[in-house]
């Protein structure tokens, strides 16, 4: 016990930074009107500047490197605090779950774009495939947990239609293939009445192994169910994504992304690695699409337009291409910020666009640049 206290004292700065950030985000999720928002932004900006000048972020990174479990426990406790404060705030919880699911989608895109270098401008389409798969299956009384997985499989399957053109093209040409797919996907859904046409489909709420997501969770909001499950999915897929990166597979993807010709000259089978990245990425995207659809309870073609695919790509770029760590704050920014700007109503998209432009000018490589690969803990220490 004494040991724990000593350790906490040792890491005091890092721990406070983590908790202050958590509480800041909580308040951020709760503020509504422009005055509080502006004050909060000013406070946040000042605090950020202050923490950055004292190099406290480095402190946190050192903490994360040196005692992984302590760091994880700390993050977990911070998250728990946030969830306890927000236990009855339906909307804030809804936004947290959305951020978690959008992040999960973007891990899939990170595998495609950041690791294997495949530009996928049809992310929202595969997101939608997952959603539609689960919509059809839940009306058939299929077990929900299997439906979620099927959503992923369906997305991977539909994606296989594009594999041939994607393998043959590169760069902007490959981008066009997926753009074309994204555009035709939405129109196709609208025109075909078998899948609900433009009105879309209704979906029952999630229920697995007797865990009814539609009911209040220990006296809190029913959205807590979704938050917990989405966070679980996000953490698992994040871990998988990182493990992929820190393995021979990630190495192969990096090699072929950077230089196809030299990779081919060293025996790397470009096509099969690209297929793996594309399929796996789409699987993750479809999976979270299915979950998102369950949470929304209703999906329609206009949720999955080309514009939505661009939002997904924006998250990946803004976070720093190829860095799953960057995805989460970027998703938070892209998903929650427009929502927080509701008080300026019709001006919010304009301001949002300008803010993103500023971020990119200030940090041309995205928020966090991808770091060198470390295969396991203690990598590179002699």
């Amino acid at each position, binding site marked *: 016990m004494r040991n724990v206290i000593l350790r906490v004292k040792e890491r005091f700065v890092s721990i406070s930074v983590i908790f202050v950030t958590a509480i800041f985000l909580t308040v951020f999720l709760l503020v509504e009107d422009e005055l509080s928002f502006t004050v909060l932004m000013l406070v946040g900006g000042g605090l950020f500047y202050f923490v950055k000048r004292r190099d406290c972020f480095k402190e946190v990174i050192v903490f994360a490197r040196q005692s992984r479990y302590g760091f994880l426990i700390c993050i977990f406790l911070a998250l728990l605090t946030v969830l306890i404060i927000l236990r009855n705030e339906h909307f804030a919880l809804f936004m947290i779950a959305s951020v978690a699911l959008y992040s999960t989608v973007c891990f899939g895109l990170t595998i495609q774009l950041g690791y294997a270098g495949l530009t996928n401008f049809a992310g929202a389409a595969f997101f939608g495939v997952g959603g539609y798969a689960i919509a059809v299956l839940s009306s058939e009384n299929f077990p929900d947990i299997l439906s979620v997985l099927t959503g992923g499989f369906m997305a991977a399957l539909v994606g296989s239609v594009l594999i041939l053109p994607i393998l043959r093209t590169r760069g902007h040409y490959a981008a066009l293939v997926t753009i074309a797919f994204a555009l035709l996907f939405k129109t196709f859904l609208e025109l075909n009445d078998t899948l609900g046409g433009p009105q879309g489909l209704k979906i029952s709420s999630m229920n697995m192994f007797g865990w009814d997501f539609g009911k209040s969770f220990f006296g809190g909001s029913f959205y807590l169910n979704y938050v917990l499950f989405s966070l679980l999915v996000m953490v698992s897929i994040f871990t*998988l994504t990182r*493990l*992929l990166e820190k*393995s*021979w*597979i990630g*190495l*192969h993807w*990096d*090699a072929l992304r*950077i*230089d196809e*010709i*030299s*990779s*081919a*000259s*060293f*025996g*790397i*089978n470009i096509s099969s690695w690209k297929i*793996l990245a594309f399929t796996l990425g789409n699987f993750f995207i479809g999976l979270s699409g299915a979950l998102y659809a369950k949470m929304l309870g209703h999906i329609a073609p206009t949720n999955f337009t080309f514009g939505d695919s661009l939002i997904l790509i924006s998250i990946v770029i803004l976070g720093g291409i190829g860095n799953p760590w960057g995805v989460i704050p970027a998703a938070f920014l892209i998903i929650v910020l427009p929502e927080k700007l509701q008080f300026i109503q019709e001006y919010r998209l304009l301001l949002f666009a300008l803010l993103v432009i500023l971020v990119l000018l200030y940090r041309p490589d995205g928020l966090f640049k991808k770091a*060198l*690969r470390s*295969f*396991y803990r203690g*990598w*590179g220490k*002699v």
Partner: protein
Amino acid sequence: MGNSLLNSQGLTVKFGGLTALSDLNFSLEKGELLGLIGPNGSGKTTCFNTITGIYRQAAGTTSLLGKDITGFTPQQIYKCGITRTFQRLRLAVALSVFDNLLIGDSSSLNTNLFFNLFQRSKLKQEIEKKINKVKKIISVFNPALVDKLYEPVSKLSMIDRRRIEVCRALISDPKVLLLDEPSAGMTQEETRDFMNDLHEIKTKSPDLGIILIEHEMNVIESVTDRCIVLSYGKKISEGSFKDVSRNPSVRTAYLGED
């Protein structure tokens, strides 16, 4: 010549109407260092690209130890034991030295999805084995590089980058090594170091056949056993460097005299 290591007969490559390589015959013996020289645009790199399967030949055959490898993909060629370096370095500069070298050894890596994701301790053992292997190879060239194993290639000097590229080609224990102008961009001193490296390679692996494209004639003179001179895609001379350099048609080709 049936038993030679690498043997090409009638190699012809065309780009549209342009014949980049026409009817090239050559062979490489075990342990031999063959120089491939000729003016710019004479088809040397094209020859490498064709052997390694990046370009398709219009005619001709290539065989490795008597086995026909004509029309193989780059991946198959690599698996047969032919590796190369590139004239303009093709290292992944954003990746670490270790990563770059392991790309050269990709076929020996266990890429099973389950193994990579869930058998992490076994993977760690494999990685540690690879670290030792990599260290052994680079210390042959420059022991100082061992300390830079975890640094990005972008932080290395030109000669170290060249060394890494050669190591990447050597790590899979190839039978044939194709070196495309390794001295490009090096200082004279670095070039001298590099020649020593070449000698080192030859003593370490006596059976390895090497083809070297080079513009620095003193490099060619001091390291090659035999030379082939190309001009406009045709072989115009073959023999030891002394013989070749006396050949008047070679002089014409280089100096552009008629």
